[in-house]
């Protein structure tokens, strides 16, 4: 036994309480300790994932009460994969922003790293918990860290974006509580596996109402169409690396919560069609809005929303191939979008407005960063040798197997739109003349930022040239998601009864 999933939550919480104390001893520790914790989480999640691959799902009880009564953590192929993605990105974001607040006072820097760590811990908690109310608590932890990080720069207008995000997040968590109340009033339990096993006894009216409230409640983190008003503002106003953390960490956890509801908890067949519809609407609206954006980060934000729509469409197909494609998309998006945010935030580093028109000719001055941005753009639109190609291909084949021609057509059209707006930026970077009045002053990336970006670029190339490296993992994760009775059995029959 290498460790336990509960340490993924307990260690960051302990560190969060310790950091204010040790910050009084030596200020640099405030930056180092969160990094160590995130590295520990990364190592732990990877070793646990290997363990799960060999010996099957780990179900961890808390306080000695077995599954339906106490809270339990489920570390299976699916949740382990997502937890690994989340912790990897958390660590890379830390590495990218290690020296980032060097020029700022000590107090804000301390809080920046605490919030970053808690954002990652909360998202991990959302993914690995097996209890709906506990998931609500972790959603709130993630949410509060995200609001605080959005409002981090006092100079910008970030408080508005944060307030918007907070308003929507607070309404959404209220809806989530209503859904939890309905489920508890009907089934008398809060454990996901027991809810799933008892769901067929529930009145269909309550079932539908509860599902609607759940999806509105979680859709805010997953950036589903009518609920994503916060995203562009928050991505724009937050510090650069935090945009990457939102795209890689928060959204992944939100999507996981939605699909866990639809696939495991509620047995409503129409929900899959609902996912396809809402996903397509999200995809089309977001991509066509992204085309019209003038600010770089806003464009990336809308592109991120569009990708999430595509993920929902792929999940909505519902077959093994569809789920596989969706997970592949999530993995790719989690690798590529942070690279775009990292390199993009260095491209417009010295600019006040962060417009796309200001990046003209920057390829000459900062070739490495610009090259990485181009690599990310090629990968995300799905050019053949890079990572995005394989995931988009698997979406198309999965849709073709089910005969969903409309989906295929729309996805292809949207891909063309994506190519247009990403290549517009790449074209400006490399083939436009540098103009002293309009363009920004180039800013050389720091050493730690270059390492973080290079790691992501290597990941993209590895997945692109050798996709078999990840497909095995993704296949076992997708069969894990579709295996509902296996989940219930694993959680409810832990074997050991009360330890004392």
């Amino acid at each position: 036994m290498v460790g336990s999933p509960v340490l993924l939550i307990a260690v960051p919480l302990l560190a969060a309480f310790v950091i204010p104390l040790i910050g009084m001893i030596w200020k640099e520790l405030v930056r180092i300790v969160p990094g160590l914790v995130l590295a520990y989480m990364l190592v732990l999640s990877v070793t646990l994932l290997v363990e799960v691959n060999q010996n099957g799902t780990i179900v961890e009880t808390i306080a000695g009460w077995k599954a339906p009564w106490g809270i339990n953590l489920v570390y299976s192929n699916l949740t382990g994969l997502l937890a690994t993605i989340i912790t990897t990105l958390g660590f890379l974001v830390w590495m990218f922003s290690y020296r980032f607040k060097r020029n700022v006072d000590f107090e804000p820097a301390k809080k920046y790293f605490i919030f970053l760590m808690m954002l990652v811990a909360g998202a991990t908690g959302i993914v690995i918990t097996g209890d709906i109310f506990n998931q609500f608590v972790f959603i709130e932890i993630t949410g509060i860290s995200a609001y605080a990080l959005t409002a981090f720069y006092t100079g910008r207008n970030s408080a508005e974006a944060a307030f918007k995000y907070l308003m929507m997040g607070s309404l959404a968590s209220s809806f989530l509580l209503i859904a939890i109340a309905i489920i508890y009033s009907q089934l008398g339990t809060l454990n996901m596996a027991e809810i799933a096993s008892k769901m067929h006894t529930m009145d269909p009216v309550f079932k539908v109402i509860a599902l609607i409230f759940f999806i509105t409640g979680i859709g805010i983190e997953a950036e589903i169409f009518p609920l994503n008003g916060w995203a562009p503002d928050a991505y724009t106003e937050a510090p650069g690396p935090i945009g990457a953390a939102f795209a890689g960490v928060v959204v992944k956890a939100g999507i996981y919560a939605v699909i866990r509801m639809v696939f495991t908890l509620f047995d409503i067949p129409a929900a899959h069609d609902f996912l396809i519809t809402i996903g397509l609407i999200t995809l089309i609206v977001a991509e066509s809005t992204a085309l019209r954006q003038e600010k770089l980060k806003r464009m990336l934000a809308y592109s991120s929303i569009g990708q999430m729509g595509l993920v929902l469409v792929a999940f909505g197909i519902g077959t093994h191939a569809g789920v596989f494609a969706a997970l592949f998309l999530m993995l790719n998006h989690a690798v590529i979008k942070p690279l775009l945010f990292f390199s993009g935030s260095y491209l417009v580093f010295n600019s006040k407005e962060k417009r796309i028109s200001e990046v003209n000719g920057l390829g000459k001055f900062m070739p490495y960063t610009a090259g990485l941005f181009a690599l990310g753009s090629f990968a995300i639109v799905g050019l053949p040798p890079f990572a995005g190609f394989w995931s988009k291909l698997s979406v198309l084949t999965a849709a073709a197997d089910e005969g969903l021609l409309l989906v295929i057509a729309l996805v292809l059209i949207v891909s063309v739109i994506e190519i247009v707006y990403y290549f517009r930026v790449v074209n400006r970077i490399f083939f436009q003349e540098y103009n002293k009045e309009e363009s920004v002053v180039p800013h050389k990336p720091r050493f730690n930022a270059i390492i973080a970006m290079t790691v992501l670029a290597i990941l993209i190339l590895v997945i692109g040239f050798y996709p078999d490296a990840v497909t095995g993992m993704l296949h076992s994760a997708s069969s894990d998601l579709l295996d509902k009775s296996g989940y219930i059995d694993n959680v409810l029959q832990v074997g050991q009864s009360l330890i004392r």
Partner: protein
Amino acid sequence: MRKFLVILILAVLGFYLFEAFSGLGLGFPRFEHGVKDYYLDKTVSELHVANTVTSIVVSFRGFDTLGEVTVLFLAVSALGSVLYKRRHDVGSRSILFASSGIVRSGSKLLFPAIILLGVYIFIHGHLTPGGGFQGGAIIATGFLLMLLAYENFRVSHHVLSYVESLAGIIFVVIGLLGFIDGGTFLQNFLPSGILNELFSGGVIGIIYVMVGFKVAAELTGLIYSVLHEKD
């Protein structure tokens, strides 16, 4: 126009919510195999805790409480970081004006009583209604009273953050000790004592006292930083 639209949407939403919940019924046991009966049974027979709500909050769903304490901690940190100002742009005008002698001496008399009540409530959290959150909130109102009565009453930020961090650390460390001793996080590793005595329930009492300290420190810090917000 906008208001009319909003009222229309709300009316529809309210109709469906009311339809759903009026079919729910009130005041009878609704499900046969809920977790509730198990909790009520095990609270007495295994945990030796009188207050079932406390046993649920601290033991059965103790992980929630850990998360909840973290939410408060994060809220206080967020308040500090959102309202943060560099030294040189801090104004000098305070929003408070001096209070009268009656209020001053009255609050001096009441303050110890309030603190005592708060401490009583969180120490007896596993026996009587109440617990860490309630007791902590009461203690924080005592500090609020002092802050309002004496405009130059100061609470040391360092002390607050020491108390807050130490209480949180002890909570997590107790959980980890249970993990080392019994194999699961937050496992009880102390003798659980006799029902309805002060020293019963194993780690539950200790954890709730820590929660009380933490909540008191956090709420006081929260009030303090908003009250002394110079504008």
